[in-house]
């Protein structure tokens, strides 16, 4: 009954991967995104078999950084089962040290779209790639619609948890709509005419 769990940010069961230089593909989503509510002292028991969990970045800060060290979570993190997601009002530049340290811990980070037309997470992804030189997966979560995929892919996202009602087949077709671009992006430089 994962689709009704209020503790989760819901998406399709399949995740759309679009690695830099690769092709878009669908795969089962191994990660659950914990919304951060109903916190009674630790990560709630989500689903049977839900080993891999994206926790809110602010929750990580208050439980797993500095002198806050939640042993259970750290242990799971060391097994590669914990990532974080950034809310739109997380100022990632203010927590550069935690994020730098996270490079060795989090296999996946995500940035959240509370509503599809809120573009803050585009800048979050751009900063993760440009400023932090983030090499692991950066995933778009929340109100992720197929018409944002191309923009997201260009700023730095390489995985997309589409909203459950979105058509995955149409989604897969979004990435080759444009064969040229007129500004640089994470995926590549602007198109130049052959000399």
């Amino acid at each position, binding site marked *: 009954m994962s689709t009704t769990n209020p503790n989760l940010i819901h998406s399709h069961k399949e995740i759309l991967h679009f690695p830099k230089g690769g092709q878009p593909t669908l795969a089962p989503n191994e990660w659950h995104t914990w919304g951060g509510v109903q916190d009674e002292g630790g990560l709630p028991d989500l689903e049977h078999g839900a080993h891999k969990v994206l926790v809110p970045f602010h929750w990580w800060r208050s439980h797993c950084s500095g002198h806050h060290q939640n042993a259970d979570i750290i242990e799971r993190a060391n097994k590669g089962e914990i990532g974080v997601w950034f809310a739109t009002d997380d100022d990632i530049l203010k927590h550069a040290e935690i994020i730098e340290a996270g490079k060795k811990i989090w296999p996946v980070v995500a940035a959240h779209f509370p509503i599809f037309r809120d573009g803050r997470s585009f800048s979050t992804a751009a900063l993760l790639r440009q400023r932090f030189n983030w090499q692991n997966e950066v995933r778009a979560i929340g109100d992720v619609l197929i018409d944002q995929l191309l923009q997201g892919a260009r700023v730095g996202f390489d995985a997309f948890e589409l909203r459950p009602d979105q058509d995955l087949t149409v989604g897969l077709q979004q990435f080759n709509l444009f064969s040229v671009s*007129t500004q640089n992006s994470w995926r590549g430089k602007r198109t130049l005419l052959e000399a």
Partner: protein
Amino acid sequence: MAMYKYDTIDQTLVDERVAQFRDQVARRLDGTLPEEEFRPLRLQNGLYHQRHAYMLRVAIPYGLLSSNQLRTLATIADKYDRGYGHFTTRQNIQYNWVELEETPNILADLAKVQMHAIQTSGNCIRNITSDAFAGVASDEYVDPRPVCELLRQWSTLHPEFAHLPRKFKFAINGAKEDRTVLLCHDVGIEMKKNAQGELVANIYAGGGMGRTPILGQLIKQELPWQLLPSYLTALLRVYNRFGRRDNLYKARIKILVKALGPEEFARQVEGEWAYIAKGDDNFTQAEWDRVAKHFTKPAYKNLPAIDNEALKSQFESELDANERIAFARWLERNVRSHQVPGYASVILSLKPHGTAAPGDATTAQMNAIADLADQYSFGELRVTHEQNLVLADVEQTQLLQFWRAAKKQNLVIPNIGLLTDLIACPGGDFCSLANAKSLPIAKAIQERFDDLDYLYDLGDISLNISGCINSCGHHHVGNIGVLGVDKDGEEWYQITLGGDQGFDAAIGKVIGPSFYADEIPDVITNIINTYVAQRTADESFVQTYRRLGVAPFKEAAYLNVKKKSKTDETALGGDAS
């Protein structure tokens, strides 16, 4: 022709954008894309849902058009609309009566002549505007068009800034006088040469109209032109991350700049820029060369310069008595001096007195103007902030012939810069955002002040009308501003005085309680009479206002105001179309 021509990259991008939008429209029509989610997608392609129909806003980047493009705009008006288009203050053209199903075909027609509607609306970087006299103005420091075009390309489908907190408008100027309302833009870019002769930009940020009109603040001086993409990325990134999203009316960058203070905002931009200033986003000389080669001077003849007095006497024998005054006035009001001896720039007035909405041109007019451009001005024309059209390169000795030809299309009313050259948004007749109608007010004022002798005597006065606080009619910077407001479901009009554009830009002050629609012509008359009674010899309206302050104008404005009951108001809606 001195205008940019698409290369295969530009053309491919626009064609692919049409295909993308065609698919989005198809998904909207088959119901898989709900209206709420389609809305930002159609807006980013200039498609609004208006009171009666869809409205399509087409970009005329930095105001430059070829005659061939204008013919396509005319054809579109005929084929998909009702035989006219509306030129806007931000160098776009709007069609008021299009069908959703047909918009992909309109965009495909536009793409064939290197035009599009990309980012003419929505919370993204909008069509970049500039000086309608770019490249020809006698007061120009540098030709801003290469930078306009480079930034047009850079901002087109920019992924990071596709969902900003609110719309984002650039204006770019390169002349001594500002004809772009630079300080009322989210970002104003002033191009000039530094002491070493290098092309640099001064950046003003945080200007805007709307509910909280604010003039932009200088936040960066002498930025080398090559670094514009990285600097603007930093600026937009700060805004994208920290601009308010909780309140539509506080979401523009002006609110962020005001809240932080210009110094702190500039500091944050510098902080971000430090990481990317040296990156490969920046423009290269090769890119400049690729774009700038299109903005070379057309094949001007080697002609002697003629001043207006000499011109008048030269044409004297060819003019009959009736024509003499009209032509002389037209020379003075509608013709501008040019960089090149023997040439002039001509403004075609789209402000007939009461017979068409300000900025409207019919299919026949557009086709005729295209012909005029071909015959007299190297096949090129421009759109002004005041919603008129400019033929920039007319030989002075051909001005009389030109005037007679343009007169047949009712395009030579010598009212440029005068009271009836007013700016007006489409208002409540079309726009679903509007609180009140604009066009009947414009018509009533133009009809009241139909006497050209009198207008000419009044001299420079700008009167701008907006149907709501979104300020599309730029009422805040009109010497006289008229703003439609809604009070208990009725249309009222608030008057502001003392607004101005250019580098002396000022936001007009509200004079007091608002008026009924049918009071406005009397109110304007009383304000104008005060000016006439109080002015000194050469004083313009705004100069008299600045000298005297608001008091005498305010007193006059309320002189004849009737205290009417609501039942007297039934005539108000009579002009609705």
